[in-house]
């Protein structure tokens, strides 16, 4: 099925964007922990 309307195109791309945003938020949290894991001073 092809996309014929801008509306459907945005529905599709924004849908993926929302999924990515969730992944980004989770990933960022994890990455921050990884980044600061060996810090001597106590960042929380």
């Amino acid at each position, binding site marked *: 099925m092809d996309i014929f309307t801008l*509306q459907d195109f*945005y*529905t599709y791309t924004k*849908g993926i964007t929302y999924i990515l945003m969730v992944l980004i938020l989770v990933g960022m949290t994890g990455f921050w922990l990884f980044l600061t894991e060996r810090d001597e001073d106590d960042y*929380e």
Partner: protein
Amino acid sequence: MSEATVGKISPPSKSVYTPFNVIAGIIIVIGLVITVLRFTKGLSAVTNLDDNYPWGIWIGFDLMAGVALAAGGYVTSAAVYIFGMKRYHSAVRPAILTGFLGYALVVFALHYDVGRPWRLPYPFLMQQGTTSLLFEVAACVALYLTVLFIEFTPAPMEWLGLKRARNIVVKLTMLLTIFGVILSTLHQSSLGALFLIAPAKLHPLWYSGYLPVFFFISSIIAGLSMVIFESSLSHRYFAHKMDETHIAEKEGVALGFAKAASLVLAGYFSIKVIGISADNNWHYLGTGFGLWFLVELLGFVALPCMLYAIGVRDKNLTLIKWTSALTVFGIVLNRLNISLIAFNWYLPAEEKYFPHWMEIGISVFIVTVGLVVFKFIVTRMPILYEHPDHKGGH
């Protein structure tokens, strides 16, 4: 009112028939009656909504203004935990509590407004309208309400003596604060962006591509002003519940927040002017709506900006307190202008919307419920003071 009379009134009196309780009780009874009407007879029985004005004050005031005024939570926790302004620490808990109650009430109010409230989770569970700004708002409000709830839980946990659970939540403070700021940035701005889809209906002076930015920046102003306003009210009615830290820091909080609010108001004023210029809307300023726009811009943006500045320079706490009320009123006015007054601005007066008294009744009812719950919590849980077991810990 002098401190001495405050002291006399405020200790919890033995009788339940205090003026506050009686008035609150009456309002709540009326509210419940309207509630029954609303859910048995439909929206037309209690509202003046029509096809030209699908949104009334339940959206314009309860949602638009309510969310802006509940911004104190993210503004304060960001200032203290992210920007490291530790000296405002005692302002965090009351701000989080008001934020949480504010959002809870917004969601509560939405159940009255939407046609089929039991379907409110549909956008997440059934079909996602990802192109809708309202979807974005709904998702963020739902998530942020959860974040605020978790941020609030240490207070009841201390009250109930759940130390282990409390300490786990306190460890999450940073994460929750950052999440809160992200979610707030998004939905505060998206509330303004809701109107981007209706350029033909909103008056050009209020319609602007910058609407999301305007809403976000003014939410910071609303948040700061609400913290000042509310802390002066709390001090008046709950002084006996405050510990020394809170009272000692109170003045600093008012001055610091007033200074910040003044600065942000100056920025807000600037971008509003840029908004007029960007769309070349100068000629509208001479019309009736233009005058009204100027009233909002000069009377409720420029004026409070100056008053705050004077208040800070003179360390005049009374002036700051009144200015905070003026500012809050100005933000509410802005939200009502955009969602109701300047919306469908070309319609003749008789076709314009004016709220039914029962719509106002429900809005008052919801605010009252908020006050009652706030009073209940503040008189019981460690909000305005630090729990002795957790001093300096949170």
